[in-house]
């Protein structure tokens, strides 16, 4: 039973890492977030109920820690939530490797945190709306509205630069 607990946790780590990296856009911070989450999950083994949804619990811990870190972070503009930019070298390397995708990644990093959190659960982790809504403690309707806003914002941010030229 106890081994099952650890094994179940281990099985969730790959998706937790994938999600954390996409969420915070900074390798070291993402790994710290995952480690923090893992430590907390392991510390709660005594409270563990067999059959509990390990993945949901771990994502919930991770999201709580993420929000916690957002609150701890220095004051930043409230209209656009902009995490620290990745190092220039990383960005150039990514652009070279994925010329067509870097724009999406950077646009997602610029989404407001609540939209980024929700969108990545669905787009990257393939969670159902029911799962994601439960995890975020919001209604399905609120989740769908949030996803729609996120997709609309992404479309604006990744659109061709023509509109900007027309303004000038």
């Amino acid at each position, binding site marked *: 039973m106890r081994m099952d607990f650890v094994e179940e946790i*281990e099985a969730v780590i*790959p998706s937790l890492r994938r999600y954390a*990296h996409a969420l915070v856009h900074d390798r070291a911070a993402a790994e710290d977030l995952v480690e923090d989450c893992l430590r907390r999950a392991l*510390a709660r083994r005594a409270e563990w109920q067999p059959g509990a949804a390990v993945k949901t619990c771990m994502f919930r811990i991770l999201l709580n820690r993420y929000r916690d870190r957002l609150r701890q972070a220095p004051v930043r503009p409230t209209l656009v939530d902009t995490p620290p930019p990745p190092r220039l070298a990383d960005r150039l390397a990514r652009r070279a490797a994925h010329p067509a995708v870097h724009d999406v990644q950077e646009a997602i990093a610029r989404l407001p945190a609540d939209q980024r959190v929700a969108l990545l659960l*669905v787009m990257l982790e393939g969670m159902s709306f029911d799962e994601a809504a439960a995890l975020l403690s919001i209604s399905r309707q609120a989740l769908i509205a949030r996803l*729609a806003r996120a997709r609309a914002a*992404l*479309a604006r941010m990744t659109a061709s630069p023509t509109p900007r030229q027309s303004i000038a």
Partner: protein
Amino acid sequence: MTTPPEEPVPKESLIRFHADDLPRADRRALADRIDGDPASRAALAEWDRQDAAMAAIYAPLAEEALPPRYAALLDEARTAPAARRGAARPRSGILLLAVLGPVLGALIGWGASRALWPAPPETAAAAAQAFRIYATDATRPVELSAAEVGPLAAWASARLGQAIAPPDLGRAGLALLGGRVLPGPTGAAAFFLYQTANGQRAALYVTTRCTAGPDRPTAFDTAGLGGFWWRSHSLCIAAVGSPGDATLHRVATLAYDALL
């Protein structure tokens, strides 16, 4: 008359369609409408492109071997389950870590060094001192009783400069007796006292303007009185008392989550 133009597909419906969240019949009906709506088709294609872009970047991460820092944590949980469940005293765990520190440090790096947080921490010492003085007071261990938890929380919040309230430790078998505000190492401190059914007492001691400390409950021991302490934002928190380490660890875990 030609066929009237259809209403554009609502974005919410499109979102549900894209995530395969619609019942089969609704999905089929919507698919027909999307076929006749170039804007919807373009949006779906764009979302597919976005999803594929993110998958291209992040999917490989999930295929990587488990990084050593996590493997070490999992191994620790597998090989020392008894200590975690409270059969062994955490202090012996710390001694063991001190002996094995260099080896473990090489293996799991930063994680081990945090477990070896230098003692004696000021907050922990102050918590132990407060516990010795007040928890043993037969007549007036607390200023405000559990019946006045609202005023107690308001008082502590006002003096510490941030919202704080005694957490519910019922799941650790402890009921709130009450609390008070005390002088702490860096200003006002909150002292919340709890009691088990058989009369053992434990306290949470919270100080503010805390600049250093472990970010997870870490065992400490001061002159025979032990507990766990950690830092959360500008707060340092210590759980101290006479119940066994297993109970105190549970107290610390509950408070850790509640007082974040």
